[in-house]
């Protein structure tokens, strides 16, 4: 039982999508950005934009 729960936690942890990955997906799918530097700049912009809100 405990092993099952631990395995589930491990699985969930491994499936966790980071905030960076989510923002990179927004950059690719919504803004159609393909350049790695531009995607990174967009992530930075969102960090500052969210932070200052």
């Amino acid at each position: 039982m405990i092993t099952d729960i631990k395995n589930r936690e491990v699985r969930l942890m491994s499936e966790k999508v980071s905030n960076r990955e989510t923002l990179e997906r927004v950059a690719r799918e919504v803004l159609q950005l393909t350049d790695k530097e531009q995607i990174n700049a967009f992530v930075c912009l969102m960090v500052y934009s969210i932070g200052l809100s």
Partner: protein
Amino acid sequence: MRAVESNLKQKKERIIKTIRREETDKVPFMVIADTYVPTYFGIDINDVNSYEKAEELNIKFHEELQFDVAGAMYFPNNVFTAPLLKSLGGGSHVVVNGIKQINPASVNILSPEEYPQLIKDPMNYLLETVLPRRFQILNIEDPEERFEKMKEVLSINFAFGEYFNSYEKNGIPLLASAAWYFNPIDFIMDVFRNFTGISSDIRRCPELLRDAGLALVESILSMCAMTPPSEDKAILVPMHLPAFIKPKDFEKVYMPSFKILTEGIIGQGHNILMAFEKNYTHLHDQLNELPKNGIVGLFEEDDIRLVKKNLGGTMAVAGGLSTKLLRYGTKDECIDHVKSLIDDLGPGGGYFIANDSPLCFPGDAKPENLKAVADCINDYGYKK
């Protein structure tokens, strides 16, 4: 060429020359009016519930005062800020009666013990560890739901971007660029540590604070590189902490990242509008170490004549127009004040006559005083 385009072109030329500290045909009039714009016409801020309404008021405000440039935009907070905060699920600000206010109690979400992690990987540490302490959006477990919420935030920003573009479309010269940033140490103070926290860090761990500031420089540069530079625009950078710290602490903690970042931004071809909030007289020597091109300093409490004398070789200077006088003075007192500023600071160029603090609240300036000041500048401001 339509009259509005010709008028805009003429004003832009004045702006460009003044940023370059060259003499122009007229001392340019810069207005910094945020949520004051509706109240100038007796309209309650809360009655502005669409960008169309805000745009209509901006057009009327420009037609009425014929300023050469708006230093910053009017933010209709009920249309932009309030929905944004709702989508983010938190913030260090709240919108009360149409005014954006900081909630100081919510600022401190980073401990000084975390500086090493911030320095090591600043963007990821903020995004995955620090900011989720304040914003629910960053804690949504379902990846699809989080993705959809991020899209919602982006669409709010897109709508605001359209509103930003309306200034140009409507022939209203706007100095503020689409890019923006805070200097690293101000960013750390305003967003993560608050004034009490940063004051303690300056005493207890100045090197870590300095290095945290330096660690943020690259990300700000990459962010600003997304916006193409324009010679009639400037990135608005509000400056907060330096007014409250000693020159030696400024040198030790604030200056390293500030100087590298400023040089980098100027190197990208941008101009910078530094809003020196409060008084910077104690730092004039250090400010002279900044690049000698592309900077406009907007001063709030400094003696503007002394500023031009001390810093006029480094930056274009804006300010001097007493908001206190606009609020409490008579029309004649305001007109005398304007003439004296134009006489003393106009010769040689490099001066924007501008209100010394932003107009936000209904009582910040008597409309009849502001109108008298505008008419006087637009007449007396021309080169004799």
